[in-house]
């Protein structure tokens, strides 16, 4: 049996501080997750992962490292996992979703940085998260100013590769992104010592496409009139997808989808009939950020879809699997990733189209546009999003928040009032 404490010690973690985090998580998870009734049985897998969150997957990763595999830590859905897989590498998400890590980040970053960046930097520098210790190389991208500068600080502590994101989506920008992917592939090849061949890349593309399809199946089941799974549970599945082995992730998501599809046939719902259906759009919710979903789902509404990086942006659209040369494959990968609509692009009208389409597909009663405090991009785009919703006759509520507890009651009042407004 593995002894996690030994493992954490070997990883050079600050055990005492880490223990403080270990105290908060079970309580918060109990309040937010175990308080729910009639959850799908398939969620047992993710409950289990949470209960061993800093133990089970980290020990798998360390085992893989002993066998010569390299672990790449990423922070964004634009970084192509396929390429890493093709070189027999492993990808793990590294985004910080807890207030616990924020003060550590604030030691080196301006307070007016978004909590996701502050938490990520804090988790690394304070040595309180095993994933941040394990990753052999961090892969950053230039999606916002806060991240660009944070990479410079993290880069003093850990090997980093930065992918230069285009800011527009003209043909030359997509070509440039294909080039960036090639440069990244070369870095990965050198770092792992494994050459990427068309066959290996094709395998990588297939594995990640299968994960996308499985996650999408779960989402598709949420379109049903009954609500077979809470938004919180679906969010948890998405959050852990960033950390898990992609094949196992797909297997578990498919199993959950089987169960949800059966629930839809049997008209099983985890909310009373008539519960208002909410689409959440905006900034990502990294684990363990369950705050907004919890507030919504304890205020008389249900989240049925997330147009976020920890939602549809992660799995929508597949990479074309018919390409056979590396050149074509990189272009196909670039095409797929440039189909994601993030507020870092200008213009970004595709996102509004996505939200309108999802609002229809998931038959939502209202949209909640959430912004992580100090995310200038999504905050500014909020105007366009909210206007488009109003023009389409879809009620919308804009909310700005962070990882702290103190605004909970104020948010609850707003959300309850919004739900009352929906009728």
């Amino acid at each position, binding site marked *: 049996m593995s002894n996690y404490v030994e493992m954490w010690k070997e990883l050079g973690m600050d055990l005492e501080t880490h223990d403080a985090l270990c105290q908060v998580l079970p309580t918060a998870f109990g309040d937010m997750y175990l308080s729910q009734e009639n959850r799908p049985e398939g969620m047992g897998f993710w409950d289990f992962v949470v209960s061993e969150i800093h133990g089970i997957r980290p020990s798998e990763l360390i085992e893989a490292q002993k066998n010569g595999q390299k672990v790449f830590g990423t922070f964004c859905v634009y970084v192509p996992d396929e390429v890493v897989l093709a070189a027999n590498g492993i990808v793990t998400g590294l985004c910080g979703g807890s207030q616990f890590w924020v003060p550590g980040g604030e030691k080196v970053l301006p307070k007016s940085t978004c909590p996701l960046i502050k938490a990520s930097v804090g988790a690394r520098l304070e040595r309180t998260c095993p994933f941040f210790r394990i990753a052999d190389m961090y892969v950053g991208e230039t999606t916002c100013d806060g991240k660009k500068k944070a990479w410079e600080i993290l880069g003093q502590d850990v090997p980093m590769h930065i992918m230069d994101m285009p800011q527009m989506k003209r043909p030359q920008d997509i070509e440039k992104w294909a080039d960036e992917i090639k440069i990244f592939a070369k870095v990965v090849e050198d770092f792992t010592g494994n050459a990427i061949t068309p066959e290996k890349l094709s395998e990588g593309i297939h594995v990640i496409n299968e994960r996308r399809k499985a996650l999408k199946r779960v989402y598709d089941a949420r379109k049903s009139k009954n609500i077979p799974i809470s938004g919180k549970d679906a969010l948890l599945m998405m959050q852990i997808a960033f950390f898990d082995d992609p094949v196992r992730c797909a297997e578990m998501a498919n199993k959950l989808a089987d169960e949800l599809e059966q629930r839809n046939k049997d008209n099983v719902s985890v909310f009373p009939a008539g519960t208002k259906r909410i689409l959440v759009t905006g900034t990502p919710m990294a684990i363990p950020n369950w705050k907004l979903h919890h507030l919504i789902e304890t205020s008389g509404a249900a989240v049925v879809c997330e147009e976020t990086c920890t939602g549809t942006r992660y799995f929508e659209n597949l990479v074309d699997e018919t390409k056979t040369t590396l050149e074509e494959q990189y272009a196909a990968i670039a095409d797929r990733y440039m189909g994601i609509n993030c507020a870092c692009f200008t213009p970004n009208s595709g996102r509004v189209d996505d939200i309108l389409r999802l609002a229809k597909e998931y038959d939502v009663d209202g949209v909640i546009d959430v912004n992580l405090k100090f995310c200038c991009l999504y905050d500014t785009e909020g105007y366009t999003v909210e206007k488009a919703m*109003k023009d389409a006759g879809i009620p919308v509520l804009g909310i*700005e928040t962070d990882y702290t507890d*103190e*605004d909970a*009651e*104020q948010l609850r*009042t*707003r959300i*309850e*009032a919004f739900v*009352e*407004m929906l009728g």
Partner: protein
Amino acid sequence: MNYIGIDIGSTCAKLAVLNEQKETVLKLVQPTGWSSVDTAEEIRKKLQDENIDPEREACVATGYGRIAVPYADKMITEITCHAKGAVWLHDCDNVVVIDIGGQDTKVIRIENGMVKDFVMNDKCSAGTGRFLEVMANSLALRPDEMCDLAASGGGTSISSMCTVFAESEVISLIGRGEKKENIAFAVVDSIATKVASQAGRFNVGKEEVCLTGGLCECDYIRRTLEEKLHSRVVSSPEGRFAGAYGAALSAMRVRK
């Protein structure tokens, strides 16, 4: 059957009781104090003194202390209640309601008698009753006295939005020997500017605006808001009970 509406705000608790004919049977206002649970109990006693049994009548609680009223049949947010109350008080179905409350300020757009959209201030207390109260304190005035005094002042301004910084600005103005009415003017101007910018998102223009909440009794604030918003702002002497009336009206739909 009587219909009880209780609005427990951060500063004051308001009670309104309506009968079947929507006539006011009882209304009262009292400081919330430090415990909304105790306040709710005091209100229960006052109701019982008037031979109104809250357990038997329909009762709706609203305001930030709405969860502290154990005998309420239903809790409804202050947004919905203020909107309902304002529509009823002003007999107007299309209106923008501005409620300057103790710790938050709400702007609510109402179309055909229904809430269509709303904004609330964030954690910050700028533009709320609390801001006014703190400034009045440092001038050794009651909030209503300060508002009345503001009408005869002018010529100075406060630049800080933050209550703490604004208070030290006021103190340094006092230290410089600035006249009280001029400081009062600056305080009211600061609040009205903040509230108007919050309402700005709604392009208030054609619609009538009605001012509710504790500050609506001050005509000078109403006039200042009118100037800043370039639209007619109305208020009612009962405006501070808008939330409680809205709750009482909602209680008419509670089944007992």
